């Protein structure tokens, strides 16, 4: 979770800085050096990514594999993730159970594969919702300025002032545990950093000639925003999206770990860790295996996000 908040703030600040905001200077990342070349189409950009950042490309492959495993979980998992077999409880990793079995005799590997469904859904859906909210509010703040800007940005300040985990815990306290409520909690909480980035970008984009031209021929404000400004924010939004996904995944895991997130018998990774915690000193794989799964997914998205920032971000492209 620390990672979540830090990263969310960090990345939004980094993007803000790159877009002319007041955040700190852009951050470094491994494997980013050398000429970026002229990349115009999305295909070209993808090729540039593969050529220049092998780790990011590898991460993309890992993510695709995890998505495939999650989608085809019934085929990929060797056992049913809910099937209990008390005779096989707490087995050490073996050929029959690659990652052992838990206290109810359920196959840990199968639960991790099914758990990927939860983690990826939590990573994608609330991130999409919160970013949609953040994008609209950020564009409106940047474009209209004045009172609208003041109110929206103060709201964003309020949201960013909270330690995100505590805020999520409060929302979960109010609404009760469960995955749907995590969706709502994370969607409500994470919009502010997107709003900040989009606002900073809108502020610079609205001064461009083509926006002025659109305005002078009487195009409506919302049309200008969605047709002229939004497409130009897309590269940053894609980068931010890739970097917000791991934050959301970590949030869910942390909330479930604290007992306010997913509820049993769900195969949420965070929940698996906290249930395995009881057996840390006798059967450590029970909590280490799902933790490693979380780490791999988060790391893959972070590497990909770093690589994408390299290729897509206009600031770095100019360097």
């Amino acid at each position, binding site marked *: 979770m620390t990672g979540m908040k830090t990263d969310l703030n960090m990345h939004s600040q980094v993007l803000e800085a790159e877009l002319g905001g007041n955040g700190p200077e852009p951050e470094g990342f491994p494997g980013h050096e050398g000429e970026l070349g002229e990349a115009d189409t999305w295909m070209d950009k993808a090729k540039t990514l593969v050529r220049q950042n092998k780790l990011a490309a590898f991460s993309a492959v890992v993510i695709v594999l995890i998505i495939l495993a999650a989608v085809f979980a019934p085929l990929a998992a060797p056992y049913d993730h809910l099937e209990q077999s008390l005779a096989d409880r707490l087995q050490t990793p073996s050929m029959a159970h690659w990652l052992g079995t838990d206290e109810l005799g359920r196959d840990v590997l199968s639960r991790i594969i099914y758990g990927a469904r939860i983690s990826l859904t939590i990573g994608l859906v609330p991130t999409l919702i919160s970013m949609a909210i953040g994008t609209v509010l950020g564009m409106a703040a940047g474009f209209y300025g004045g009172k609208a800007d003041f109110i929206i940005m103060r709201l964003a300040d309020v949201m960013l002032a909270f330690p995100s985990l505590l805020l999520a815990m409060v929302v979960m306290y*109010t609404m009760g545990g469960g995955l749907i409520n995590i969706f709502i909690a994370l969607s409500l909480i994470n919009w502010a950093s997107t709003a900040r980035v989009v606002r900073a970008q809108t502020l610079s984009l609205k001064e461009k000639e083509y926006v002025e031209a659109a305005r002078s021929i009487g195009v409506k404000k919302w049309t200008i925003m969605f047709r002229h400004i939004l497409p130009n924010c897309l590269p940053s939004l894609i980068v931010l999206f890739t970097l917000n996904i791991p934050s959301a995944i970590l949030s869910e895991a942390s909330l479930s*770990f604290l007992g306010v997130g997913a509820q049993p018998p769900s195969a949420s990774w965070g929940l698996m860790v906290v249930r395995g915690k009881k057996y840390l000193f006798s059967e450590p794989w029970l909590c280490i295996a799902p933790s490693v799964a979380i780490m791999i997914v988060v790391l893959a998205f972070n590497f990909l996000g770093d690589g994408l920032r390299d290729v897509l971000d206009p600031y770095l492209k100019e360097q």
Partner: protein
Amino acid sequence: MPQNESVILRHVFCKGSILPEYLQTTKDKEKERGFSVLKKVLKRILISIPVLIGVVLAIFIMLRIVPGNPVTTMMGEHVNPAVIEKVSKEMGLDQPYYFQFIKYVANALRGDFGTSYRLNRNVTQIIVEAFPHTVKLSVLAAVVAWIIGLTAGVIAAIRQNKLLDRLFMGCALMGVSMPVFMTALVLQYVFAFKLKWFPVSGFDSLNAMVLPAIVLGWNSAGSIARMTRSNLVEIMQNDFIRTARAKGLRESGVIIGHALKNAMLPVVTMMALQISSMLSGAVLTESVFGVPGIGRLAVNAIETRDMPLLQGTVIFTTVLIIIGNLVADLLYNVLDPRIREGE
């Protein structure tokens, strides 16, 4: 313009107002800068006030839009309605929302966050008892984060694109990507259970504080290392670094005396952002290691459905973060001469 002429013109035109720049003496400029800094500081403080009010209001609303009665949420559904009504009255929850809010803020300003429902004690008192533990943990974690982060960042920047750079930056990204509880459980298993160097949990001796501090600091160390490296790499390309090298300074002198000093500025601001993430991380670290701090208090408050305690801890923590950010912002103004002098 000769000095005496400037002085004459100054006397002719100056009526205490702002002079054109070519007429200003150093003293005038300093005075103006002083005003602009003061204005900036005041503005920054004023901006924090609506945020503070917003934070209290947000938590207040969130805890009261519970479907049904907040007291039912606290006590469970199978409680006598008469008891629920009595408790609601005692807690003032039967009064209009705006009245409750004003009363809460007025009390909070006097340092009274209400009474804990489960522990039947003053929330402020409970927080005051738990807070030093969180401060101790956070400070130790910050020390760990700075030592690891700075060292790794500087070495990676010096050995840019070499094996060491990639290794350290890979570790840093791993530090950022590892869930706090994973670090905690792995360290607990290896150093407390297998090697028996440290106790598994508790926070009563310096030895017991080592693991929690490393767990909490590890994550921030990753961010600090990444940022230090990128800033340093950028600054090392500046002209003044070339000048420093040209005048025969040793490489260590160039890095410590010239480059690092400049690279540290954004890292200082980042440290302010880290206050927030550290307190979030503290919730997890404290619950894994059984540290009796604010984070564990919040988790306990949720487990026992103690609304006043949860409200108090969240508001207290958030206000702390806002003040921390404010101080860091002002510190940044003081540290960076470009901002200080309004360039």
